[in-house]
C-alpha cells in the first residue's frame, strides 16, 4: 500500500478524531487534521502533528490547508447548511491543492432509518424522507456526483451505519440519557441495530485510499452482527449498573408532525446533539432557550423521554442494508469483533468519568 498524506476535515469530531488517531498511530500514512477553529485541535495536539485551521465553507482557506495532501477525508457533520455548504468549497479546494481523491463520509440512512429488505447501493435514494438529516445527505451525495463529473478529484462515498465507539454521541449521549432518566426504547427496541464500530469504519476508509476501481463508487458499511437495539441498550445499562427493565418502553404513533415535533426531532437527533455537545456551555444554554422559545413552550424542553420519529424508525427497523459490495470490492471485513468493540467502548466510558461498574475512581 502506498504511503499517503491524508487531510481530515472535521478532525475534532468523533469520527475525524479517530481517523487522526488511527492513521497516526498506525504509522502507514501521514495525517493532517483540519478544523474550523484552532481550539478544535485540542485532541489532535496530543500528537506532534501538522494541524491546520480552515473553515470548510471557505474554498481559498481550505485549499491552503490541503497543501501537500493527496487524500482528503470529509468528516464534517452538522445541520443541512453545514452539510451542503461545505461540498463545493472542499471539492474545489482539493482540486486547487492538487489532491487526488476525496473520501466523503455519508451515511446509511440515506436509505432511511428503516430500509427495505435487500437494500444496497443500487437502491434508489429519495428526498421524500421525514428526517432532514437523511435528505441533506442524499442531496450531498448528488451534489458530489455532479462535482466529480465536472472535476478532476476522484470521489469515494462511504455510507456507514450507526458509528459507535469511544466519544460517539450514540454511546456517550445514550449514557447521559440513561443517567438522566431520558433513555427509552420504542416498542421494546426489537429493531436491528445497524452499527459499525468506529475502528472498522476507519479500516474501510484506509481501503479507499488507493485503487482506480473505487473512484466514483459508493459503499455501504456495517458489521456481521446485527443485534437488536434492546441488546445494545442492555450492554450499556449493564456496564453502568443499570437495569434495562428501568428504561421505559414507549410507543410512537406516526402522525403529521407539528412545528414543535420537528424542532424536537431536530434537537434530539444524535447528529445535532453531537454538534451541540461541541459548543461552549453558554451557547448550549442559549440554544436551550431558543428551542423552548421556538417550540412555544415557556420553559426548557419537557422533562421525561419523548420518542422522536428518527428513534422510533430505528428501534423498529426489521432490516439493515447489505454491505456486500464493500466486502467484494474493498476487501472490507470488520477487523474488530463486536465483543472487543464493546469492551473498548465501555473502557472509554470509564475513562470519560461515567459510572462504569468495577472502574477505578475517575
Amino acid at each position, binding site marked *: 500500500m502506498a504511503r499517503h498524506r491524508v487531510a481530515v476535515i472535521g478532525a475534532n469530531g468523533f469520527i475525524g478524531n479517530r481517523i487522526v488517531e488511527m492513521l497516526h498511530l498506525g504509522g502507514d500514512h501521514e495525517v493532517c487534521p483540519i478544523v474550523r477553529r484552532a481550539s478544535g485541535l485540542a*485532541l489532535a495536539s496530543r500528537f506532534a502533528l501538522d494541524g491546520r485551521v480552515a473553515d470548510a465553507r471557505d474554498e481559498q482557506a481550505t485549499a491552503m490547508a490541503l497543501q501537500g495532501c493527496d487524500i482528503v477525508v470529509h468528516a464534517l457533520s452538522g445541520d443541512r447548511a453545514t452539510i451542503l455548504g461545505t461540498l463545493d468549497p472542499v471539492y474545489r479546494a482539493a482540486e486547487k491543492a492538487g489532491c487526488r481523491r476525496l473520501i466523503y463520509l455519508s451515511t446509511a440512512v440515506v436509505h432511511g432509518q428503516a430500509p427495505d429488505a435487500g437494500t444496497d447501493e443500487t437502491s434508489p435514494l429519495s428526498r421524500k424522507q421525514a428526517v432532514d438529516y437523511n435528505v441533506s445527505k442524499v442531496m450531498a451525495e448528488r451534489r458530489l456526483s455532479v462535482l466529480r463529473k465536472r472535476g478532476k478529484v476522484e470521489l469515494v462515498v462511504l455510507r456507514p451505519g450507526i458509528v459507535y465507539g469511544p466519544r460517539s454521541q450514540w454511546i456517550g449521549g445514550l449514557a447521559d440519557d440513561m443517567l438522566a432518566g431520558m433513555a427509552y426504547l420504542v416498542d421494546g427496541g426489537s429493531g436491528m441495530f445497524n452499527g459499525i464500530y468506529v475502528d472498522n469504519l476507519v479500516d474501510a476508509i484506509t481501503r479507499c485510499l488507493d485503487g482506480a476501481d473505487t473512484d466514483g463508487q459508493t459503499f455501504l458499511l456495517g458489521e456481521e452482527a446485527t443485534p437488536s437495539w434492546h441488546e445494545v441498550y442492555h450492554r450499556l445499562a449493564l456496564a453502568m449498573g443499570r437495569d434495562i427493565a428501568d428504561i421505559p418502553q414507549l410507543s410512537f404513533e406516526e402522525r403529521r408532525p407539528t412545528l414543535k415535533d420537528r424542532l424536537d426531532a431536530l434537537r434530539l437527533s444524535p447528529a445535532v446533539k453531537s454538534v451541540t455537545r461541541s459548543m461552549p456551555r453558554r451557547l448550549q444554554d442559549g440554544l436551550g432557550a431558543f428551542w423552548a422559545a421556538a417550540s412555544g413552550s415557556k420553559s426548557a424542553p419537557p422533562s421525561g423521554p419523548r420518542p422522536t420519529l428518527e428513534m422510533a424508525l430505528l428501534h423498529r427497523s426489521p432490516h439493515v442494508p447489505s454491505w456486500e459490495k464493500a466486502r467484494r470490492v474493498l476487501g472490507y471485513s470488520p477487523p474488530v469483533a463486536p465483543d472487543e468493540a464493546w469492551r473498548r467502548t465501555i473502557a472509554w466510558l470509564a475513562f470519560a468519568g461515567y459510572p462504569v461498574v468495577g472502574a477505578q475512581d475517575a
Partner: protein
Amino acid sequence: MSVTTIAISGCGAVTHHYYLPVLEARRDRLNIVGFHDPDTARAGAMAARFSGSAAVDTMDALLALKPDLVIIASPPAAHADQTISALRQSAHVLCEKPMALTLADATAMAEVADAQDRLLAIGMVRRHFPCSRIVERLIGGGWLGALRSVSVFEGGAFHWPIGDQRYFTREVSGGGVLADVGVHVLDLLSHWLGPAELVTYEDDAMGGVEANARLTLRYGEAGGVIRLSRDWDRPNLIDLRFAQGSVQWRAEDMAAVTLFLDGDAGQLRITDETANGITFPDCIGLQLDAIIDHLAGKPARIVRAANALPVVALIERAYRERGPMEMPWLAPVGVAAHG
C-alpha cells in the same frame, strides 16, 4: 501606595473577555495607560476603548508609560521575562496563571519581586469565587472532622478562543490541561486543604500536549484523585469527604456549594445570596480590587508569588514523572499507543 495607572501585556482572549469589561467598569478610578501585544492592531483596538491609552508592540514601550500595576496576560511562555522586566521598572504585577513554565522561572520572578520590594500577585481567580470562601469557612470551622478523600473531575470539550494552534505546545503553554485548568484546581485544593504530595501522574500526551490527565495525591492522611479533561463534557465536580460529612462544588456554580451531613441530617445547599448571578469577569474584578486595596494598605485577599510556587513545583514534578494513561481502545489492533 494607591494604584491609579494600569497597563496590560497580552491582548488575547483573556484580556478581551475578562479584563476589558473589568477595566471599563472601573474607568472612573483607574487610568489604563497602555496595551502591549505583538499584534498592534489588536492592541490598538483595545487601547481605543480607553481615552489616552497607548498601543505598543514592545514591553519596554509599555513600561515607559510608567504604570503602577502591570497585568501580564500574555502567553505563558512570556510570563517570566515580562514580569521580571516590569518588576525591575518598579511596577507591581498581576500575572495570569500559569505563573511560569518552570519552577526555576517562577522562583526567579518571586525573588525579583522581593528584591524590588514590589508586589507580584498571581491570578488565581477561583479563590475569589464566593463558593471558594464558603468551602474555606466550612473546612476552617472544623465541623466536618478529618479529611477522608478528595475527588475531582473537571473538564469538557475545549472551546477557549485561542489565537492559533501554537497554544497547544509545551513551548508556549507549558503543557496541556494540567498546565491550564489544573493550576486552578490544584491551587484551590491546596488553599483549602494544605499542601499536596504527588503520588502518581498520568496523561494522554503522545508527542504533543495532554487533553486528559489524572493525578493521585495525598493531603495528609487523605488520598485524592484529580481528573482533568479537554475532551468530553462531564459534570464538573469537586467532592471533598470528611469524617462527618462531605462538601461538593460544581465548577460552573460560583456562588454555592452543597453540604452533605452524615446520618439523617440530609443535604444543605449553601449559597452566598449576595453573590447570585456573579460572573467570571466579576470575580476577575474582585481579584483586581483586592490587589489595589492591598497596595493601598487595606486588608485584602491576594495570592502572592510565594503562595503559588508549590503548585508550580507540583506540576513540574508531575510532568517529570508522567506515565501514560490507560486507553485500551486507542491503538489500532497490534499497535502500541505510547511510544
